[in-house]
């Protein structure tokens, strides 16, 4: 699908792209950052609440508590996604909704719901990790490499 462009065509493209950049409205950066800060901050504060609860009330060990908080936050993300609320939160908070683990949850739950129409096996199950796949691949893959390198440098 690639083709070789002559000089004139390339110049025309550059000129046009410059024109587009000049004319287009850019997202209001400062406002977006404020909204992201507040949204992300609130979600993390909620997580902190559960962390304290797990530690002080349920008296979980460090490891168990980490798992507990993860499960609870994923559950909240899933619930808000199911209720159709999380995408509104995202529309407002942007990265503030995407970066916390609730965003990971949203990215798994939304395709699961969406592709239900194509069946529970070929739809929901097959496409659940459509969006979140890369995070797992690079994250888990990276951890294996880290583990091996750590052993190598012992």
């Amino acid at each position, binding site marked *: 699908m690639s083709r070789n462009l002559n000089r004139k065509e390339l110049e025309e493209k550059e000129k046009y792209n410059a024109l587009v950049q000049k004319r287009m409205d850019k*997202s209001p*950066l400062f406002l*977006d*950052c404020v909204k*992201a*800060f*507040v949204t*992300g*901050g609130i*979600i*993390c*504060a*909620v*997580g*902190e609440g*559960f*962390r*304290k609860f797990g530690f002080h009330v349920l008296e979980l060990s460090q490891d168990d508590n*980490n*798992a*507990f*908080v*993860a*499960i609870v*936050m*994923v*559950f909240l993300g*899933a619930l808000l996604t*199911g209720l*159709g609320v999380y*995408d509104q939160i995202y529309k407002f908070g942007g*990265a*503030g909704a*995407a*970066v*916390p*683990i*609730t*965003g*990971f*949850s949203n990215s*798994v*739950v939304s395709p*699961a*719901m969406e592709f239900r129409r194509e069946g*529970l096996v070929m739809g*929901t199950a097959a496409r*659940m990790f459509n969006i979140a796949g*890369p*995070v797992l691949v*690079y*994250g*888990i893959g*990276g*951890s*294996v490499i*880290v*583990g*091996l390198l750590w*052993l190598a440098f012992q």
Partner: protein
Amino acid sequence: MLIDYVLAFVIGGLLCVIAQILMDLTSMPPGRILVLYVSAGVILGAFGIYDSLVELAGAGATVPLTGFGNALAKGAIRAAGERGVIGAFTGGMTGTAAGVAAAIVFGYAAALIFRPRTKK
């Protein structure tokens, strides 16, 4: 007590702001930014740097995706220390199993219970 919440709010918020800046100023799709975050968490966790942030901000460091990466790296290193090469492979996943398994189960449940709705 309250200071913990404030720190979680601020640090967590800042981590999100960095991502927002990347989203607005570069043409990087959100998916790529999240991969960047988890990878950064893995690397920082591998060098033990992220731990100080976790000590300081608690959930403000563990809830964002960088915290996920950190958990992956620490889990891999710990298991590698206990079980060698096999541990390097099992450690990461074991450390984050709760979150991933929860996502699968709740995702499936949501698919059974809820219907997607058109956005306004």
